[in-house]
């Protein structure tokens, strides 16, 4: 019963048309609220006493890191569904999210690195969080290159989902061990992690930015999945009539 429902809902065709309907709402809503959030954050939020204006990077950096982690979660769930119930759509999700996830993680890394210049005076710090984000980026790259190296996409789907699940189990282990490792060093005087009692006036725009960015990324993910469906199922009749 559940399985039947699941298969029907997860049929690429249904998904294509449903997402086609959802996309514009999600996209424009996220765009508008992201613009509001960014303007609020960059122009109107109060200045941070310690870091000065450079802290405003937080309105781009934190949404990106948050999305980077959420997208990996999405990949893990999709791979699980693919491996257990053999739902093809889930494999398309894994494939299309991995590229977007990599770009978002790259965004998180580079914004963090630029933020590091005025606050730490260096581009790169072997801080626990940065290191685990770097590893996350490498994991995304691994997924992308693994999928790209196989001509037989059915095989590639299986490999990428196994790897994604193994990576998912590995993420908390990496976080723990990296945290553990960085206690060897002198703790940085200001870390990204310790936001000393963030002001509400800073927090509201941050929240808006986080969620609207996530919404925007999900809208793009929908597009990416649609593209993947078109590409993989181009022999199907319904696609030829689009």
């Amino acid at each position, binding site marked *: 019963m559940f399985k039947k429902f699941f298969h029907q809902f997860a049929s690429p065709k249904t998904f294509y048309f449903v997402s086609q309907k959802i996309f514009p709402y999600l996209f424009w809503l996220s765009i508008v609220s992201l613009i509001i959030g960014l303007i609020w954050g960059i122009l109107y939020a109060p200045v941070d006493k310690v870091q000065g204006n450079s802290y405003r990077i937080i309105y781009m950096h934190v949404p990106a890191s948050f999305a980077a982690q959420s997208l990996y979660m999405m990949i893990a769930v999709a791979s699980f569904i693919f491996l257990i119930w053999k739902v093809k759509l889930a494999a398309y999700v894994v494939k299309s999210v991995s590229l977007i996830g990599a770009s978002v993680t790259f965004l998180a890394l580079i914004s963090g690195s630029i933020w590091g210049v005025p606050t730490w005076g260096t581009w790169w710090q072997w801080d626990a969080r940065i290191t685990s984000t770097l590893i996350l980026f490498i994991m995304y790259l691994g997924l992308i290159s693994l999928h790209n190296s196989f*001509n*037989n*996409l*059915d095989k590639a789907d299986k490999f990428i989902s196994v790897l994604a699940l193994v990576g998912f189990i590995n993420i908390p282990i990496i976080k723990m061990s990296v945290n553990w490792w960085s206690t060897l060093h002198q703790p940085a005087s200001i870390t990204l992690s310790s936001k000393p009692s963030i002001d509400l006036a800073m927090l509201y725009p941050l929240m808006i930015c986080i969620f609207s960015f996530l919404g925007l990324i999900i809208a793009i993910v929908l597009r990416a999945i649609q593209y993947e469906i078109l590409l*993989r*199922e*181009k*022999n*199907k009749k319904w696609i030829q009539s689009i």
Partner: protein
Amino acid sequence: MTNDYVLAAHNIGYSINNTKLFKNINFEAKKGESIHIKGSNGSGKTTLLRIIAGICSSSNGEVIIDEEISKVMVGHSNALKDYLTLKENILMDGSFDIKDTNIFLESLNLKNKLELKIGSLSFGQRKKASLLKVFNNNSDLIILDEPCVGLDAKTQTYLIEFLKKELAKGKTIVYSSHIDMNLDSIEVYL
């Protein structure tokens, strides 16, 4: 469906990247029968044989083989180790020893090659060496993918005669071949 079929295939289809390689293949084989799989290059003969052997899984349909039945398969890749001698390769198989193999080694002209590394044998000799698995088997189902490629006329006749005897013994053979092997086979076209 009666139970005396050793091998039965129903509506087998195989597709790569949503492109169908073949579909709706049906055949059944009893003991003592053979099946000749025919088709042009790239039509999926090897894939079909691999599906029958249980190495690949088909995209649709199913192959029913009695679980009790033991199989032997010789494909394009001959599963021989270049860096080992012929003797070591034979012993590695585990299922038979040199004594039983002696007759076949003599008739295949491999007797004096036992101590040579596989790497130094010719293509035909390697093919013969990989066919030893078939000559010296107790399996009920024999799967052969282009067994005659690279064999000289004498060995071909020898192989065909051998297979005829096996059929008479009640074994089942599934093979693909560009050469007609005169085994009175059921023909399956891809």
